[in-house]
């Protein structure tokens, strides 16, 4: 594979370097020039974290073979604040609080820069349209758009430069004040290093061999051919685990790599550390794994039936966790109710899709301390588990939490850190693993898909007399956070309502699907989706306004939850009032309006999503002609 020659002007400096013909511009910028402000969020042009100016035109560097950069002038996010002084847009992002995890932000700043270059007077809708190629998962877009509008107005002289300065507040006075984030400058400039941006001298690159089967016995793994390949420094399988294998947030049922059998498509089976990622990939292809496929189960109801395939010996009924809650006498409550309504609700698996795919760097320090740098959301627990897995005293295991480019619960699991530790120990060199987006989606936790049967007994005046809720969740192949998710789903399942008779059962079930785990709200979403949807249906049946039925049943100050927690202050009444006001809610039962209603299409509600904001002036002109 002969190298190609790249001569280009990058951030104002001439470069002349060799590159591999298969490299993309993003690889060249990040790996060869260490310009890591350009992030790789998806590698498929979907997210915009890698945008750079090529001859003054913004493009996605993950979609560009490096050969196209030959002779070009390239400006990356690093060029915007080259001397350390933030550009107006970067200052506006800082001021507006338009950075949270920060992983999408360099790309957002670049797209905003391009948008205001294309039209310095772009209105909010046009800004949104021109930033359409960039995804953010945590900031929430509003502040990003606010920041672009602020920068536009400062650039156009409609606002003074002072508008970019921090608002004054007294020393130590933060609550209710607009306080700027300390780490925002590092994020808007792309200077902040996430785990995948970090390098060490002598560092090796890790790739993971993953299971193509949902359920199979591993008959044999032959790594000999991979071991002898030039450039391969270490190959590991479950056999390399020196201590007691197994991790999880509640139950340690998941081995670092599949041990004896695989339980889901995408489960790690072996890993390779090599001089470069391509060599590591080729070594994976040389590992021979013989599988004996086993019957698999993909539906939690099927998994609960007698005779279903069993995933884990310790759980012959495939139940990861059952959480029951009992208050009062539910059957009596139904019998005494004026109306009993039963419905079924389901929710699907959801991927967190944080913009930073999992990545980690590990090394053994001069004192023999196995050190893992990764965006782990749970480093202390990981440290304890890893010490047991690699049979070292806790003082010889160190976890460093790198900036988390979005987590939402999805980085609580020690999915890959164990492999990094083993490879660092085996090779005695620094090793780095960076997931692809596809790998992240295939191998890490999802929100639990759920199916809930909810039965509610109510009095004619709207009071809830009894609630019975049974939720079955697909926990996937391993326990991860399932137990905690089932617990919180049960605790919060009946909602913030005073109900005398309650029966809640939540079940997390093992299946051969991708494991489910922690995800924002941690189980509350699934049960409350059922409870709140149900309340609307019941309101309709009783001819009540949905806000009214909630007020009738709301827990009040000093009330007791159905898990016997005494509440001091309950803010529900305030929340309902604020929601009712903000939505411009038209009072009445859900079915009281017929085909039209007065609270839609108001001037302050968002219009339907469309494109073409940049033609708005043109259309007005056409109308005038």
């Amino acid at each position, binding site marked *: 594979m002969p190298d190609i020659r790249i001569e280009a002007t990058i951030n104002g400096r001439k470069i002349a370097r060799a590159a591999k*013909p298969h490299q993309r511009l993003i690889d060249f910028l990040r790996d060869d020039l260490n310009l890591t402000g350009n992030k790789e969020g998806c*590698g*498929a042009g979907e997210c915009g974290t890698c945008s750079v100016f090529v001859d003054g035109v913004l*493009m996605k560097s993950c979609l560009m073979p490096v050969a196209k950069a030959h002779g070009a002038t390239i400006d990356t996010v690093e060029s915007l604040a080259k001397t350390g002084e933030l550009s107006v847009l970067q200052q506006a992002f800082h001021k507006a609080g338009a950075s949270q995890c920060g992983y999408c932000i360099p790309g957002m700043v670049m797209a905003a820069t391009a948008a205001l270059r294309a039209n310095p007077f772009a209105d909010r809708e046009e800004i949104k349209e021109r930033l359409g190629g960039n995804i953010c998962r945590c900031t929430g877009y509003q502040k990003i758009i606010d920041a672009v509008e602020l920068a536009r107005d400062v650039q156009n002289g409609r606002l003074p430069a002072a508008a970019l300065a921090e608002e004054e507040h007294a020393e130590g006075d933060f609550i209710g004040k607009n306080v700027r984030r300390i780490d925002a400058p590092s994020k808007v400039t792309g200077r902040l290093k996430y785990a995948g941006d970090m390098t060490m001298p002598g560092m090796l690159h890790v790739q993971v061999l993953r299971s193509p089967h949902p359920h199979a016995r591993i008959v044999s793994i032959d790594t000999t051919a991979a071991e002898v390949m030039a450039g391969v420094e270490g190959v590991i399988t479950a056999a390399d685990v020196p201590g007691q294998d197994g991790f999880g947030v509640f139950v340690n049922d998941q081995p670092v790599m599949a041990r004896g059998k695989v339980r889901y498509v995408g489960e790690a089976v072996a890993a390779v550390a090599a001089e470069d990622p391509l060599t590591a990939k080729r070594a994976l292809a040389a590992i021979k794994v013989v599988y004996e496929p086993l019957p698999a189960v993909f539906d939690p109801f099927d998994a609960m039936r007698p005779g279903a395939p069993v995933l884990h010996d310790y759980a012959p009924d495939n139940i990861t966790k059952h959480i029951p809650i009992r208050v009062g006498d539910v059957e009596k409550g139904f019998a005494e109710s004026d109306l009993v309504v039963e419905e079924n609700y389901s929710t699907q698996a959801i991927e967190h899709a944080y913009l930073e795919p999992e990545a980690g760097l590990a090394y053994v320090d001069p004192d023999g301390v196995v050190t893992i740098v990764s965006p782990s959301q749970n480093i202390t627990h990981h440290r304890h588990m890893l010490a047991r897995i690699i049979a070292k005293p806790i003082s010889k295991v160190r976890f460093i939490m790198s900036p988390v480019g979005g987590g939402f619960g999805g980085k609580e699991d020690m999915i890959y850190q164990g492999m990094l530790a083993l490879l660092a120990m085996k090779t005695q060199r620094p090793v780095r693993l960076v997931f692809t987006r596809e790998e992240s989606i295939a191998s890490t936790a999802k929100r639990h898909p759920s199916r809930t049967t909810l039965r509610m007994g109510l009095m004619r005046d709207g009071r809830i007399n009894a609630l019975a809720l049974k939720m079955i969740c697909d926990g996937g192949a391993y326990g991860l956070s399932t137990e905690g998710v089932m617990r919180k789903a049960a605790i919060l399942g009946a909602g913030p309502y005073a109900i005398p008779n309650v029966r809640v059962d939540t079940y997390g079930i093992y299946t051969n699907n991708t494991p489910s785990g922690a995800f924002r709200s941690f189980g509350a979403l699934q049960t409350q989706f059922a409870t709140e949807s149900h309340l609307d249906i019941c309101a309709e049946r009783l001819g009540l306004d949905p806000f009214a039925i909630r007020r009738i049943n709301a827990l009040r100050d000093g009330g007791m939850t159905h898990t016997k927690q005494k509440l001091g202050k309950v803010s529900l009444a305030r929340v309902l009032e604020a929601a009712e006001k903000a939505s411009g809610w038209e009072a009445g039962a859900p079915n009281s309006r017929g085909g039209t209603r007065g609270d839609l299409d108001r001037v302050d509600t968002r219009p339907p999503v469309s*494109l*073409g904001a940049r033609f708005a002036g043109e259309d007005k002109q056409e109308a005038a002609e």
Partner: protein
Amino acid sequence: MLICDEYITPSSLADAFAAMTRHRGRYRVVAGCTDTLPWAREGRAGDVEIPVLIDVSRIPELIARRVDDKRVRLGAATPVQRFLDVPELARALPAGPRCAVWFADDQIREQATVGGNIVNASPAADVTPCLIAHDAEVELARSENGAVARRRMSLTDFVQGPGRTALQEGELLTAIECDALPAYGGSFEKVGHRRSLVISVVCLAALVKLDAQGRRVEDARLSIAGIGPKPLRLSEVENFLRGAPLDTGRLEQAAEMPVALVASRTRQEYRRDVVRGFMLRGLVNAAKRAGADPAALSAELETAYA
């Protein structure tokens, strides 16, 4: 991951054909690469080893364009963004800017090429219906005894089905030629799962030319994609509208005509609803941009579909 041993960027058509001959059976032609790179990833083609990539995006002839009031000639490697930012092109292809604004995003449009969208032959291609409505022809070139031999065919015939075209081994799509229709009002309607970076579930290009009073349809051009294996020209509907008065009833009848053509593998019922709505919206928007008499269309229709 896309792995290659050699990446060739020819600077002339002759060099490109020489490279194609030299590496026969071992190469793939690329231009913007915005489809090829995502294709070579897990879940689609996976890791792909192609010994030689031949990048035609810098061949002068492939990025040249000629536009006048009668005809448009576009080099096949013209980036889609030019539909939006070249005023004379926007004037000659009235649905072009709105087609482009729905195509991927501002950044990808700078790389993705018109020819690439055509050659990919996706049933949901956005650029293809836009050009079919202009009676587009494709120009195909090959090397024959050291000279460049060319042939032409209509774009409708060139695209044969999902991923299938009439392009032959050793042949390159070099240019697209089509009618310039500056007197027409244009619209492009598209729906997908999100706003930017989305593949069309249905998309429709509509062009309407009206008489001086804005009350009679002198000509209509309609092409739709996403409802079957390849983009379609809606000639029957065009004939039904041509010469007819511009009125709500006629447009509603026209909107019903292509509903029966929906032959996609999935979501047929949804697509039928979309086709009906898009036909009305596309025709109303195009007619308005063509200078429709405001009295010609019912206010109800305008608010519902504008």
